[in-house]
């Protein structure tokens, strides 16, 4: 039986990896494994294997391009080494100048969303209308139905996850781990109450 002689053996995943590379370089937002598998007409398990191969090739420090797992999908970004050069040429309109109020509102919506402006206002103690409008404009939050009272509810977008470099919202620190000094607040309030004449 005659066979063509092959001097270099290529991994069977190489073709798939090349296709994924091409898809990722065209995409302007993270692509999920399912999207990649559909486009490449291959099965998810093989796509994940090929992505692992690519992740090795495009890891920080090896190339100007880095493959990252972010916002529920995979995307190429510039390596951190090139950040300074990038910043000379490119603007970052989404996250530029986010105010403290905007960050607090984002936090409320990220943790408790979908939630309405009154929900945000109740927690922050001030009206949230303009802050919410600003976040919608930046694309960090988006409308997500209405509550029983008819108020529009908001949730954070995949862009939020991408900007903050989160694989998913589950990467946010647990709410229970935050506000660790709750006991301290309680103690202070009790002290004030005791000092008041009964």
């Amino acid at each position, binding site marked *: 039986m005659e066979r063509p002689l092959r001097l270099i053996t290529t991994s069977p995943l190489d073709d798939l990896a090349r296709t994924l590379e091409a898809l990722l370089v065209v*995409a*302007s*937002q993270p692509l999920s494994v399912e*999207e990649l598998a559909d486009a490449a007409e291959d099965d998810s398990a093989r796509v994940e294997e090929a992505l692992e191969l690519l992740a090795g090739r495009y890891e920080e420090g090896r190339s100007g391009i880095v493959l*990252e797992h972010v916002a529920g999908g995979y*995307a*190429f*970004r*510039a390596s*951190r080494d*090139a*950040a*300074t050069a*990038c*910043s000379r040429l*490119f603007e*970052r309109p*989404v*996250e530029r100048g*986010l105010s*403290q109020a905007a*960050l*607090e509102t*984002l*936090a*409320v919506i*990220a*943790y408790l969303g979908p939630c309405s402006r*009154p929900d945000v206002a109740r*927690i*922050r*103690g001030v009206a949230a209308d303009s802050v919410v409008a600003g976040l919608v404009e930046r694309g960090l939050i988006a409308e997500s139905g209405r509550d029983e*009272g008819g108020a529009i509810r908001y949730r954070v977008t995949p*862009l939020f996850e*991408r*900007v*903050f*470099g*989160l694989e998913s919202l589950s990467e*946010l*620190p647990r*709410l229970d781990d*935050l*506000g660790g*000094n*709750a006991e301290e*607040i*309680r103690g202070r*309030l*009790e002290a004030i*109450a005791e000092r008041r004449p009964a």
Partner: protein
Amino acid sequence: MHVRELELDLDAFEGPFDLLLTLVLREELQPRDVDVADVVIAFVERLAERDALDLDACGEFLVLVGALLELKARELFPDEEVELGDLDPEEAAEELARRLEEFRRMKEAAGWLSERLEHEQDRFFRLGPAPLAPRAERRIAPQQPEALVLAMRTLATEPPEVSLAHMGLRFPPVAQFVERFRSLLRRRRRFDFEQEVAGLPRVEQAVAFLALLELRKSGEIQIEQAAPFAPIRIARAEEGTTQPAEEGDSSWNARSA
């Protein structure tokens, strides 16, 4: 001056102030419909009519209008599930602590996000609208353009010319049968037409019949037929009984008939 008797003329209500409060408390009048500013203006106008300031009246009015405002405020924000004012001090402190705690958590979360943003400052990535192709409803099987060309080529071929050969009827000349019958009658006195033309095509039979008529016209033959559809018998004409044929009739043929 009795504040309770202050006459009001509002959009939603007309009458003394204490009746207004009674109606609101009985929920017969919606606080949201009461313009509190108009009530205050009415009181201030009444106050201005007097020389001396009636402090008692002012105090009473403040209490009443304050109550009205609180009712209105509560009605406008019915969702507030816990009214701090309704709680005893201990519960109120607990509720306040809970809210502060919640806010403190969110503030820390915001701080975490801020740090994260700082840390991600050097992550640059492509941003922009991602016009993903609409999902195809179903995939079309791969096509071969050559097959399409072949099909087109077959369709584009000129069809073979249709033969009209069978359309033209060919008639043997009448004269041919005239001669044939004459020579027959030279050998025999009489003959049977059907017998003579049997086996010939219909067209030739018709031409043969025309030849008969021609011979009859020139008086060369006699034709007998016993009955319609009976055999046609032909006999040589007797000398002297025949009429001479007219000149030029020999040009008769099937087509001109």
